[in-house]
């Protein structure tokens, strides 16, 4: 096959660090099923949705063979209503941080606060997750998956059906309610997972590389749809991604992680209103931001790869 050089005016994509997409949920992750609040002294003017204070996380104990320092001394504020992207090399702890925000994982030290209250376990009424893939229950239809989420969350039975219809319509899957996940394409499965999260009507949405397993074209279209959806929904969103383009296209701010043990190296603002149009992707502003991100990440990815290589030796 001929690959004409003239067909590709864009620079080569940046090297991607090796895939490390396992769910960072060791057996000891929080099993407190309901929210565990201690005290509530929040001011109504507080516009910080999630406050991360000096959190660190390590898997295994010091000195053990499996000991990994995933995240070290990280602080971050997620503003109400913004879309914040976490980007960084594989194993930098960005998914770990996301799981800690959602109460699926307890930090080794430091604290996470949602609406001014410390997170001690999952907060189903405040936070919904969208995972990378395979988080829909394959033995249920799309509709049943959505209804089940609301049953878990405690939505009254009478409301569930209507909310399911609405969230399916919002992601354009109204005609696929009775399909099983295996009968859908990867992109449609992620739409269904998003519909399940939307039906929970939480103020915060945590998305862990939701389009990571999809092909480039599908991600682009889903990204556009997500931008439209979010401009209407007014949700606070934290979005983990590997893709520079996705981060710039979707985010209001992008937090760039350093290599393991990860911490936030810099936060970049993307000043562009939602919903974003495909034309934004070809603008000079987009390219400049993407290059800035790439420059920040490049050294970290090299470091992460070197560490992975020495770890494997």
């Amino acid at each position, binding site marked *: 096959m001929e690959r004409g050089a003239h067909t590709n005016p864009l620079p080569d994509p940046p090297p991607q660090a090796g895939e490390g997409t396992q769910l960072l949920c060791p057996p000891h992750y929080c099993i407190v099923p309901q929210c565990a609040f201690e005290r509530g002294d929040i001011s109504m003017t507080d516009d910080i949705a999630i406050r991360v204070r000096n959190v660190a996380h390590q898997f295994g104990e010091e000195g053990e063979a499996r000991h990994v320092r995933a995240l070290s001394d990280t602080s971050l504020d997620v503003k109400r209503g913004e879309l914040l992207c976490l980007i960084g090399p594989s194993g930098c702890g960005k998914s770990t941080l996301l799981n800690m925000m959602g109460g699926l994982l307890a930090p080794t030290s430091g604290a996470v606060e949602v609406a001014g209250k410390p997170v001690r376990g999952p907060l189903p009424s405040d936070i919904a997750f969208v995972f990378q893939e395979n988080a829909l229950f394959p*033995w249920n239809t799309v509709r049943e998956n959505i209804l089940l989420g609301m049953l878990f969350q405690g939505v009254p039975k009478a409301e569930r059906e209507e909310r399911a219809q609405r969230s399916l319509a919002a992601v354009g899957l109204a005609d696929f309610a009775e399909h099983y996940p295996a009968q859908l394409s990867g992109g449609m499965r992620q739409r269904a997972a998003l519909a399940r999260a939307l039906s*929970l009507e939480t103020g915060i949405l945590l998305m862990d590389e939701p389009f990571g397993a999809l092909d480039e074209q599908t991600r682009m279209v889903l990204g556009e749809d997500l931008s439209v959806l979010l401009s209407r929904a007014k949700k606070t969103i934290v979005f983990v991604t590997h893709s520079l383009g996705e981060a710039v296209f979707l985010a209001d701010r992008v937090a760039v992680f350093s290599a393991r043990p990860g911490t936030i190296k810099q936060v970049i603002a993307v000043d562009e209103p939602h919903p974003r149009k495909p034309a934004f992707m070809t603008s000079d502003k987009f390219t400049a931001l993407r290059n800035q991100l790439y420059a920040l990440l490049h050294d970290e990815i090299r470091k992460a790869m070197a560490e992975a290589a020495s770890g494997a030796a």
Partner: protein
Amino acid sequence: MASRRDKRDKWASRAVQAGFLVALALAWYLATTRWGVSHLLLPNPLRVLQQLGDILRSGEFVGDLRITLTELAAAFAISATSGVTVGYLLSRSPYLVRVFEPLLAGVYAVPIILFLPLYVLFFGLGPASKIALGATISFFPIVLNTLAGFAHVERTFVAAARSMGASDYHLFRYVLLPAALPVILTGLRMGFTVALLSIIGSETIASLAGLGHRIVNLAESMEMPRMFAYIAFVVVIAALLNTIVSTIEARWTRER
């Protein structure tokens, strides 16, 4: 929702299967009438058929069939309840899974039929020793599959359910159980099959009654056509039981 073409293919393979059985019966017939195979080793299939008719008409088989099926039902009831319960309880702790999964798999590989003399010593020549042996042998595939089914549920399913607020009951009823069910059902089907095998097998070795016992008795008194008739009868019963169990498994797995 099978298409016409699928249906035609299905019928074609059914026809080949039937043709194969007819050819086998024909070869059997020719071997006894034309090719001079001793009637003591291989009786004429027509005489076997005649004996089978006699067995069915006289109802002579009822007593032995009842004993064998009762043993099977008792053994399977014991191994299914204990296997599923023990498997589920062990699966709750990663430590216990690590310890017991290889241990049980190791014991599963031992030919437990070797312990039949011991079981006869403990439980006598009657049905009790067959039930104990059948229950022991079928316990292992059931407990191992149940353990594997519950212990290896996709982590993301559990995390997703917890993040949406699932209680322990929700998690079991809507996530763990449906995720593990197909694997457990496979274990139950395997357990049922080995229980049947080991019960009929042990009846042929040391017993007072049952279909296996009847077959050995006939062999010892050289009543070959009648023995073959009983073998054919047991084959049909076993095939029938396995079809029923497989159908149940397939239906449950599909309906989830």
